[in-house]
């Protein structure tokens, strides 16, 4: 019980430190912006550890972070293999193919209003097909390897990317378009010099949303059939073996990569859309 009390104290302390940093002069600095979430996360982990121990939660229900860390560090090799299989082969390939395809279709849809009015509602409907239903079908179609995972990811990221890109391409003011008209600019020129740059913030929004979708899609698809490696395989198999440390270690891999991936895209966004009001602060 004392561990639980200690956990609450830890929480209060972490929060107090964060309040001081955030509201103090450090709140606007880069270091502050980094420190606060890290302290928050560390507090959460500490609470988790203490609560699990304090309440004597069975290891096979929820393991403490320390145990997850141990499992993680002891199985780096295996987790690396899972990472390559699920994320590099499945998620990334699917992400690239899905986003690229959505981008090209967006150009088409943007060019031909008829397609826009015909395809978008249809796409909207198809986007509502839950992956847990489509994944077994795609596994049946594309086999047990990473290809089926990539297919699931393509299906998942396609529509959000399409919608964002289409919205972005039309996010120009009348004046900006009229200006191009006064130059008698061709469709391609208008696209290249006006619509694409103007669409960038939206495109990045889509790319960001899709990072997490890609990850989740690739992992989930493995539940419906996979070779004997991959993060989804690892999670599912390890639950069956009651090796919860491994389950969470695999989740940790996904979370680390997901955050990194998101961060990279967000960083790229900062560099390429520096001119946008949202980036100038």
């Amino acid at each position, binding site marked *: 019980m004392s561990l639980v009390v200690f956990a609450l104290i830890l929480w209060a302390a972490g929060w107090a430190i964060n309040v001081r940093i955030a509201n103090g002069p450090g709140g606007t600095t880069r270091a502050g912006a980094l420190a606060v979430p890290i302290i928050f996360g560390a507090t959460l982990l500490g609470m988790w550890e203490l609560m699990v121990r304090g309440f004597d939660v069975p290891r096979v229900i929820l393991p403490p972070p320390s145990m997850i860390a141990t499992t993680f560090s002891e199985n780096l090799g295996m987790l690396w293999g899972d990472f390559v299989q699920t994320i590099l082969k499945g998620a990334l390939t699917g992400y690239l193919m899905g986003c690229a395809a959505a981008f090209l279709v967006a150009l088409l849809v943007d060019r031909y209003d008829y397609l826009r009015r015909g395809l978008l*509602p249809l796409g909207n409907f198809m986007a509502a097909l839950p992956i847990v*239903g489509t994944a077994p079908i795609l596994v049946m179609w594309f086999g047990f390897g990473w290809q089926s995972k990539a297919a699931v990811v393509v299906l998942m990221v396609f529509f959000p990317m399409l919608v964002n890109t289409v919205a972005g391409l039309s996010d120009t003011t009348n004046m900006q378009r009229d200006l191009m008209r006064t130059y008698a600019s061709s469709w391609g020129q208008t696209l290249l010099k006006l619509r694409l740059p103007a669409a960038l913030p939206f495109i990045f929004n889509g790319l960001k949303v899709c990072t*997490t979708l890609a*990850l989740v899609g690739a992992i*989930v698809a493995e*539940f419906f059939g996979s070779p004997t490696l991959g993060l989804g395989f690892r*999670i599912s198999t390890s639950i069956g073996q009651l090796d919860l440390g491994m389950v969470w270690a695999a989740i940790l891999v996904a*979370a680390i990569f997901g955050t990194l991936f998101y961060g990279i895209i967000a960083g790229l966004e900062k560099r390429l859309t520096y001119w946008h009001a949202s980036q100038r602060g």
Partner: protein
Amino acid sequence: MSEAVAEGTAPRPHRRLPIPPVVPMIVALIALWYVAAVPMNIKEALTQVERDGAVVSPESAVERRDMSNWALVARNPQHIAGSWATARPRLPAPHVVVEELYDSTIGEEVNGRRGLVRSGSLSNRSLVYHGLVTLNATFVGFLIGAVLGVALAIGIVHSRVMDMSVMPWAIVSQTIPIVALAPMIIVVLYSIGVQGLIPKAVISAYLSFFPVVVGMVKGLRAPDGMQLDLMRTYNADARTVLQKLRLPSSVPYLFASLKIAIAASLVGAIVGELPVQRGGLGARMLAGSYYGQTAQIWAALLTAAALAAVLVGLLGWLERKTLARMGMQT
């Protein structure tokens, strides 16, 4: 001087009802679907007719396994129609799915042993029943997720600390494959004696809170400096600003994110139904997969998508009504 000038061309009113572009798209999609079903199902179809005594080429199933589907179609053109009628198709033909949809809704309720007509209650073999089961969890999860999302957004907008600490972790939380965690969540909730609707709703809520947070943070921050300054000149407190300025101006954002959230909620409910095989569209999809009944999966899938469309449509309708009442045009 050139005579070429713009003549007055008032648009003439249309006589015929214009066909919405979706219609030809759907027709094209269905045609494509039929075409795709041929190579997809050809192996199965050939095996099937072979068992019925027909001659197919090549004759060995092992040889066929290693051939491309298109080559098989080319060599057995007389069996193409069989691809639309296999027992366990890889891609069921559209009419098969439609039949299944009819059988598992109206057909089952009217003629089924446990149907509405014979038993007085919805049949657990019908998609109507399972759709309702899923809807229930969706609503509860959506409600929890939306309330949580709005509350979190309000906290984030009002507290710097929350903004700085919670927001990054909200993003991280979305990189965790909840679908993988769903069975464990259900087991954990079992262990504290919670069963039935709530575990599904929890998963639903987990998926739906994030879009609401993101949208509402944007929405609550939508008021510009002038609108906020106006409140300051009235010496309004944070509560009043929230009530009279931030919340009203976030309404369009709220609806935009609610529409995403309800679709996510539905997926969450379905995900939650997979491990606990106790009805719902998720259970239905899995059962279809379990017994290789692809038509059954497709029927459940389409039902789910239609449900999502209806829910999103409902929210859109509510949005238009609300915004119109608030004097905001869409």
